[in-house]
């Protein structure tokens, strides 16, 4: 099969990178990226995408190829997204109602206890189980944390140096990926809560 690099008469090292767009078979590269992104279990980052080519590729060039790929799928059933750990294809959420007909057993929605615990870890991380219980005002069952850990949405990132050395929980890249986010800062902004007392001002931001 043809090579990524079209045969060039000489290796002009100084301008090789600049000329990447001319030297590289962009049609083939797009197909390789497409196949790689679609067959990969995990999102692929720029470093991984660079590995797909024999010739060094500049990041801006890779991003251009990704842009073109994303554009190609603008009207299709899937879309190319950039998430926390890289680029990946996903089915369009608006088609989910049809895809659900294939698998009538929808994954269960998480309970309020699970989602509130997740929210506290996401917005207040790193937190201990005690911190979560303080905020929620109830015990946090081990099952709730197990559920979130099982989904690889939270993980223990250390212990707090207090008696009992409680574990500190934080959210993972997997959570961001699964929510189609790039960074924690893309989480919905915390709402400003109206005062519960006449004289009290803004307590928390």
């Amino acid at each position, binding site marked *: 099969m043809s090579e990524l690099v079209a045969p060039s008469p000489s290796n002009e090292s100084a301008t090789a990178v600049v000329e990447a767009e001319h030297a590289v078979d962009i049609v083939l590269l797009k197909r390789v990226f497409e196949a790689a*992104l*679609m*067959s*990969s*279990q995990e999102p692929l980052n720029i470093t991984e995408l660079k590995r797909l080519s024999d010739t060094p590729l500049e990041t801006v060039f890779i991003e251009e190829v990704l842009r073109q790929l994303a554009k190609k799928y603008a009207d299709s059933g*899937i879309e190319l997204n950039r998430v926390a750990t890289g680029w*990946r*294809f*996903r*089915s*369009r*959420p608006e088609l*989910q109602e049809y*895809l659900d007909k294939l698998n009538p057993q*929808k*994954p269960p*929605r*998480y309970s*309020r*206890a699970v*989602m*509130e615990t*997740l*929210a*506290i870890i*996401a*917005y*207040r991380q790193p937190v201990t189980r005690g911190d979560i219980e*303080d*905020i*929620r*005002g*109830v*015990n946090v069952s081990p099952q709730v944390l197990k559920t979130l850990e099982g989904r690889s949405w939270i993980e223990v990132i250390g212990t707090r140096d207090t008696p009992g050395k409680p574990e500190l929980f934080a959210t993972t890249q997997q959570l961001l*990926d*699964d*929510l*189609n*986010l790039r960074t924690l800062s893309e*989480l*919905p902004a*915390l*709402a400003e*809560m109206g*005062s*519960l*007392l006449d*004289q*009290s001002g803004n*307590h*928390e931001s």
Partner: protein
Amino acid sequence: MLESDQQIPLPMSTPVAHVHGLPMMEMPLDLYIPPDALEVVLATFQGPLDLLLYLIRKHNLDVLDIPMAQLTQQYMGYIELMQNNRLELAAEYLLMAAVLIEIKSRMLLPRPPKQGGAESEEDPRAELMRRLLEYEQMKAAAHQLNELPQAGRDYELVQVLIEHAVVERLPHVSVEDLRSAWLALLTRAKINAHHKVRREELSVREQMTKVLRQLRDTDFVPFESLFESDANIPMLVVTFIAILELAKESLVEITQTETLGKIYVRTSRAITVE
């Protein structure tokens, strides 16, 4: 008990819960939860903070202005009622009632004299309010998080099959690997002195292999045919030594039927096979 509930009904479009198969059409209006509904309420609310928030936000209830004596009586009633079942579930609610009562009582007391400590200045309600607001914020955040499209629930990840051609990957071996394997052998067996061979001797070994290979498919080979015609002098010498070495190791047999006659070389195997 349900009848007593009817005294404070707040019509709702759908039943919030079913108690003993009967729909419970309203949520509690104050901190008093009828014992029959306690289990339902415990399941409906995430905890006392959740219940307090509900009462404050939905019913504009001033949780700090409710008659504490009445509340205390009601909650003490729980303890008796629930002693036999699931008291532990209500414990958090009872604790909250205790906190409320404590706040109320502190507010009734005269303020302690200023001692410079900021804490003593604080409104006893402030801590509870702070907790309620923080919880409410997290509750809203949880709702928003849940609204975000989730992989597997609201969209699927694309993963097409990778066509794997069945190509067996063979280990790559470098000269360096061979060298280190040999070194390992030497180190282990301490046979380095015994097996110390000069570079030339390896050439002899190579030539021995070549000669044996030449002899493999034939019976007799003329001695001189084992020497390449275009070989240089060192190669001729090496080949000669190789043949001698082979003879010494009884790998070949060199025969000469008559003096100054043709010399033939054959493998020992050829002898044994025939």
